[in-house]
Each structure stands twice: as C-alpha cells, then as structure tokens.
C-alpha cells in the first residue's frame, strides 16, 4: 500500500520491522516493542532525520545499515542484543509547565 492512516495494526502483528530513518516510524516501532532495522538512504545524507536514528542505534535500541548492506545485516543480526525502549515522560513536561505558569 502507498499510504495508510495508521500502521499500528501492521506493527502489532510484525516480528521485525525494516524502515527508513523517519522519526515517526522509528519511535512508533520501538514503542510497540518491535525489533527495528533502519535503512539509510545514502543520497539524503544531509537529512537531519539521521540524527535520531544514529542516536537510537548508539543507545542500542535499533540496528542500522544502508541499502547495500541490508542483506548482510539481516543474515548476521542479533536482535536479542537490542534494548527495550522506555516510554517518554510527558508528565515531566506537565510538571515543568505548571511551575512556569504558576499552577500548584
């Protein structure tokens, strides 16, 4: 399919996700607890989206490769080495904002 409103259902039934480096894709997949391999488009190297994928890889949450190394990655991957992705904490933002605005 070209476009779907939500991938949540597909994500839930997947065992492995291979995706581009878009932040939404990365985060949604990691939050569903699915192992993720991010494939980076070498031609878009200046794209800031890489920052997030690189950091998440550094922190051990996902694997990454480029188009030419994908097969190799799939063959040699160790998904058990990936760390579980902790949820974000919007409650911290709410607390901060309450202080800023003066709500008790």
């Amino acid at each position, binding site marked *: 399919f070209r476009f779907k409103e939500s991938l949540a259902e597909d994500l839930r039934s997947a065992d492995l996700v291979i995706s581009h480096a878009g932040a939404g894709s990365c*985060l949604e997949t990691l939050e569903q607890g699915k192992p993720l391999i991010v494939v980076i488009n070498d031609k878009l190297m200046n794209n*800031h989206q890489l920052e*997030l994928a690189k950091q998440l890889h550094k922190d051990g949450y996902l694997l990454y490769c480029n188009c030419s190394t994908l097969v190799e990655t799939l063959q040699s991957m160790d998904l058990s080495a990936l760390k579980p992705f902790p949820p*974000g904490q*919007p409650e911290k*933002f*709410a607390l*901060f904002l309450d202080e*800023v605005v003066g*709500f008790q």
Partner: protein
Amino acid sequence: TGGHTTEMLRLLSCLSESYSPRHYIFADSDQMSEAKIRSFEQKRAETFSNSQFTLDRIPRSREVRQSWTSSVVTTLYSILYSLPLTYKLKPDLILCNGPGTCVPICVSSLLLGLLGIKRAIIVYVESICRVETLSLSGKILYYLSDHFIVQWPNLKEKYPKSVYLGRIV
C-alpha cells in the same frame, strides 16, 4: 504538520484542565493535523466535561528547503496574517515545537507584548528528532522564547539556556 502535531499532542497529554481553552494553530497546507487534533480532543472530552478548543489555519511560512530570500517574504506574510489572529486570541501561554508556523505566531505575540496589549509566556519544545542540531525555528526561538526545552543532553550542552527534562514525548 505531521510529526510536529503528534509530538505536540503527546506533550499536551498530561496537562490539567486548567490549560483551557486550547487554541490550535497550524498551516493551511496541512491535511492531517485537524483529524489528529479532533481525535485527541474528543478523547479528552470523555474525561473532562468542560473541554474547549478552537482550530485556526495560517499560511505556511516556509516550505522545506525553500530559498532564503523567498522564505523571508513568506514569513513576513505569515506574520502579517498571524497578528490579527494572535490579537483576537490573546493567549496567556504559547506552546510550540518547531514547525515554521510557530515563528510568526511568536513574533506576533512579542509585538503585542511590546505594544502593551498582551504578554504571553512562550514555551518552545524542540522535536525529539533534534539530537545534535536545532531546527531553524529552534535557532530563532532560542532567543525569543521564555523557556526553551530540548530532549537530548548534547543540545543542553550546546545551548546552555535550554531546559533538559529527558524525553517527554
């Protein structure tokens, strides 16, 4: 737009009902945000009976990779357009997280503050996508906002006046 809206709605998810009424402003070219916002507010109305919100669209200040000179023109146009809207809404608090749409609104708000009409607190939250570098809106609003929040420690180091709360979306 898209990812910004999703992040913004997550940021709003734990706010108390004191943050009401909520006025959402987004780009006229944005197709998907309206649906996401309505869905969020609908869920919210299930818990909080007096939930109030409005939606407004403003011309997009800048397309991705638009040239510098034309960006200045389109941003100025967006500012002119946002002034009456900001004047009408007279917000106490402005929350923004990075799309070009936020710059004209914040500039309008600052102008209204300078004119003694209405002073809003401006809180900017840089996107989770920004690990090493700030977005263009971020670079501008780092100096114009009252509180500037980043979600990665590298940015806190580079921009010492920012606030780091960890990952909040």
